[in-house]
């Protein structure tokens, strides 16, 4: 067998893999953007305990949190068209590309996860804070927006950052339904050139760099939002 790791092959792989970063990023952008909207919607449903929607959202969040991404991807890709097409007379099964189903899966998944993060952060704000707000004459909504939300954001930021990094990594599963992202491209290079380690290493470097970038942004955001308040260890 040849050398396990070869720098020449490593460098050759870079231009082959790099363009596929756009696919990975588009999944992250869609997943986060619409996931946040969906997540906020679910939190509101939870807090207002809206009839019908509340139990549905409970089941939905529980399913999304309780099953592996891989399985969700399969169920959305094959299952959703099988329900929707006969009802609405559409043909999304054929007309929507695999990447569209990948976006949907990630949005649905992120919505559920982010709602749990947001909701957890809200409940971490002691109720005394709400009472304090109400006692000085703020309305319920004002108290929520001016007192609870700013504190909640601080608690929610670190898990939100980790979640984003996780989303970025999970996006590597879309290869299975035929969407070629950076991980998928690395694998196909492995099967076409017979050497996969260099491609994996490059992909690892890309993943690490982007996750560092995400973390750095969250660190910066966190600092901006800390309002001069320190935790046990001050700022991190």
């Amino acid at each position, binding site marked *: 067998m040849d050398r396990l790791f070869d720098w020449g092959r490593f460098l050759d792989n870079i231009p082959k893999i790099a363009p596929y970063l756009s696919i990975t990023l588009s999944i992250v952008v869609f997943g986060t953007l619409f996931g946040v909207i969906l997540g906020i919607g679910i939190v509101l449903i939870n807090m207002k305990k809206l009839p019908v929607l509340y139990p549905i959202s409970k089941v939905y969040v529980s399913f999304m949190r309780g*099953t592996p991404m891989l399985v969700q991807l399969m169920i959305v890709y094959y299952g959703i068209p099988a329900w929707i097409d006969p009802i609405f007379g559409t043909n999304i099964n054929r007309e929507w590309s695999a990447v569209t189903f990948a976006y949907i899966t990630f949005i649905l998944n992120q919505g559920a996860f982010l709602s*749990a993060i947001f909701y957890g952060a809200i*409940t971490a704000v002691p109720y005394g804070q*709400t009472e304090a707000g109400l006692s000085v004459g703020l309305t319920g909504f004002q108290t929520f927006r001016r007192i609870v939300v700013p504190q909640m954001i601080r608690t929610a930021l670190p*898990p939100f950052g980790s979640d984003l990094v*996780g989303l970025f990594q999970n996006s590597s599963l879309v290869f299975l339904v035929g969407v070629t992202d950076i991980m998928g491209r690395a694998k196909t290079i492995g099967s076409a050139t017979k050497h996969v380690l260099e491609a994996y290493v490059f992909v690892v470097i890309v993943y690490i760099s982007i996750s560092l970038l995400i973390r750095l942004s969250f660190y910066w955001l966190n600092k901006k939002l800390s309002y001069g308040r320190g935790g*046990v260890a001050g700022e991190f």
Partner: protein
Amino acid sequence: MNFNIAHFNESLIYGIKYLPNTLKLVFIPLVMGLILGTAVALVRAYKVPVFAKLLAGVVTIYQGVPIVVALMIYNLLFMLKFNDLAKLLHIQSSVADVDNIWVGIFALTLMAVCSMSEAIRGALLSIDHGQNEAGYSVGLTKVQTIRRIIIPQMIPVVIPTLINNVVGLIKASSVVMAIGITELVAGATIPSSRTYSFYEGYVAAAVLYWGLTIIIENLAGILRKHTGKFRGNAYD
């Protein structure tokens, strides 16, 4: 697409048969993650010289690596280098004797240590710095303050995030099928290899995972009520 109930049931039975493997892949990393993760979090939160910075770097970088890629690389190295290592250590065993589930456990343990240390650290940071000072002012030592004041307050805050992590671990355990370990998803799709009912296999896997996480979340709910008794929370 027809959903074949008989094949679904067969997949369900196969999935249950391989459930112990999934549990092994979750509980060993979970226990290791809790122990090492708490240690890492404390070292970082209390800024132990050198180690805090070192661990911060390692955790941040390692969290950027998708578990799938890490797993592939460990597996490749394990297959290539384990025999040499065993010879070096004069161990009478070879790759053929070692179940590769340990490669999966190894990869998942590293992941768990990183994610749990972050969860615990986040909770530590959410506790007001005044609590430390209060502890010292009544004459408690640093260790006593951590043990009696910080950790009890941290637990209710950390449990939701930690449960997220455990659930994440359960689901991440499904990626080990990529290196040929038969866990729940791989088990549920074994009959599919003969009957070509993969969709039924995936749905069966989803049902089993869902059940598993619902059990865990309920246990966590009980735990949370128990540990958070002293803390009023109007949103629960």
